[in-house]
């Protein structure tokens, strides 16, 4: 490769090659390092990340009813299932589910009647219907997302439509019999 500038006839690497590559590499690392803060500034800011927990009073929720609340600026459904809805959820063959989970997996031990899920469709993030009075509950008597037609069952599991996962169960705990702390 005698024709390549900076290379001797014998093909050995000369000092100029080293300087050239080292300068280029140093410049590339520098540009990359400068780019980091300019990209990172778009991530959620400290005040947004600080909105960590939400407390919900569930004492007024009767069987078959649900409330909507907000956690990390996302809607959360807290639903008190009826005995019929629990039976319906437990009757389903797990193998037939797209995202197999039992109702017990999705609730706290001894509190199977309380279904706490994000009100965010796992397809493209719309709020499914079914938590409010008189709203469509879809083909499986749970939640129905009107945007692209995802149907969730009484345990908030995806049964039909484009959504890939069950409605997400956020981290939460019962701080007392009537207070749920989400987050």
């Amino acid at each position: 490769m005698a024709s390549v500038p900076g290379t001797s006839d014998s093909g050995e690497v000369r000092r100029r090659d080293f300087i050239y590559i080292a300068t280029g590499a140093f410049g590339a690392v520098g540009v990359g390092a400068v780019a980091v803060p300019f990209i990172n500034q778009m991530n959620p800011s400290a005040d947004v990340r600080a909105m960590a927990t939400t407390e919900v009073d569930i004492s007024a929720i009767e069987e078959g009813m649900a409330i909507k609340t907000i956690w990390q600026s996302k809607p959360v459904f807290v639903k008190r299932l009826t005995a019929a809805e629990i039976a319906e959820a437990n009757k389903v063959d797990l193998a037939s589910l797209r995202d197999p989970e039992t109702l017990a997996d999705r609730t706290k031990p001894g509190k199977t009647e309380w279904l706490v899920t994000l009100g965010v469709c796992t397809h493209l993030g719309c709020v499914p219907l079914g938590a409010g009075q008189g709203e469509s509950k879809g083909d499986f008597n749970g939640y129905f997302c009107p945007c692209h037609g995802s149907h969730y069952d009484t345990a908030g599991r995806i049964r039909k439509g484009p959504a890939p996962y069950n409605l997400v169960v956020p981290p939460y705990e019962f701080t007392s019999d009537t207070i749920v702390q989400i987050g």
Partner: protein
Amino acid sequence: MSFPWAQKYEPQSPLMKWIDSRLPLPRLVFDAVGAGYPVPRNINIWYNFGVLAGVALMVQIITGVVLAMHYSAHVSTAFESIEHIMRDVNSGWLIRYLHMNGASFFFIVVYIHIFRGLYYGSYKAPREVVWMLGVVILLLMMATAFMGYVLPWGQMSFWGAQVITSLFSAIPLVGEPVRQWLVGGFAPDNATITRFFSLHYILPFVILGVVILKIWALHIPGSTNPTGVDVKGPQDTLPFHPYFTAKDFVSLCVYLFAFAAVSFFLPNSLGHPDNYIPANPLSTPAHIVPEWYLLPFYAILRAFTVDLFFIQAKLWGVIAMFASILLLLFLPWLDSSKVRSNAYRPLYRIFFWILVVDVLVLGYIGAMPAEEPYVRIGQLATMYYFAHFLIILPIVSAIEKPLPLPNSIAEAVLAKINKGMPAATQPGAIAQPAE
């Protein structure tokens, strides 16, 4: 650049000579859009939409800069500031309606321009880069229009932002962090509105830059023409000014008339009434749809409802939607026919019109709720869209026997004049796209 017989710029006055030797800007204008740019003499009315698109971009930039003087990019004031523009700002209602409808008209003009390019083979060698820059402009336009629609912070704004940014959460592993990075939070909020405002302001100028590149690339071979045969000599062309500037002004008058008519008398007909309801993160509108110009792509997004080959339905939809546009980048190589114009491609012409109908069907399905029979029709139309480009077009261009081409543009023009017959009845004459 351009043809050897193009008129040369010769400054007459001492002042123009003085300027020309220091900053040859008048020379640049003369060579680019003046008498120094020869254009095929037979281009028809469908070739006017490029200039109209340029006008539409300028209307959006001017009205947008003015609106930004009155708009407030904050979740608590954005919606009110739009109402303030509509009710309090002097002529604010007019400027906002021009901006709203200007976006729709920009897309109408650009879609016609794209289909003109498809019909007359404008994407073929040596104009591949012109075509690809056009696809880049289309993508930038979609991004800009989407972010602009979010700014009023109405119900459609909020849920549009939620749905479109959620597309990115379909990406395996990094999807959710990417989505949070895009919106600057766990859900669209103040951080979203401020960054969208910043980008919505700058992207039109990026589009303007790509438009200049596109015109630069176009002016090397010059425009195609309805016959698709190359320009061979001076008898085939006319100077851009005054012949085509005059013609463009005629279509511009018609365009501005239609634009004014809609902006004054039907200003909300292309929008959605839900966007006059302030954003509510707890309630999705019963029926959310994007703006009309994104509907065909929205229908493709929704067409995938079952998981295939270990890829989730959601990811398929996202891949298909982006692929439907990126596919156009490969069009110059998917069509192997040497004949440019569909006027001489009797077989492909039929499929061209089926594609037009297919895209219209996709647009209709995109506006319908996600239920039968619309889902199934949307799936078939999506399948056809991809089959058109990936299967039908390569096969047709290989087996088709095109009609005999005229020897030159001038010959085709003269044949039309001499016979005094409508072009559509003569094979080999200038064809109209409506035939």
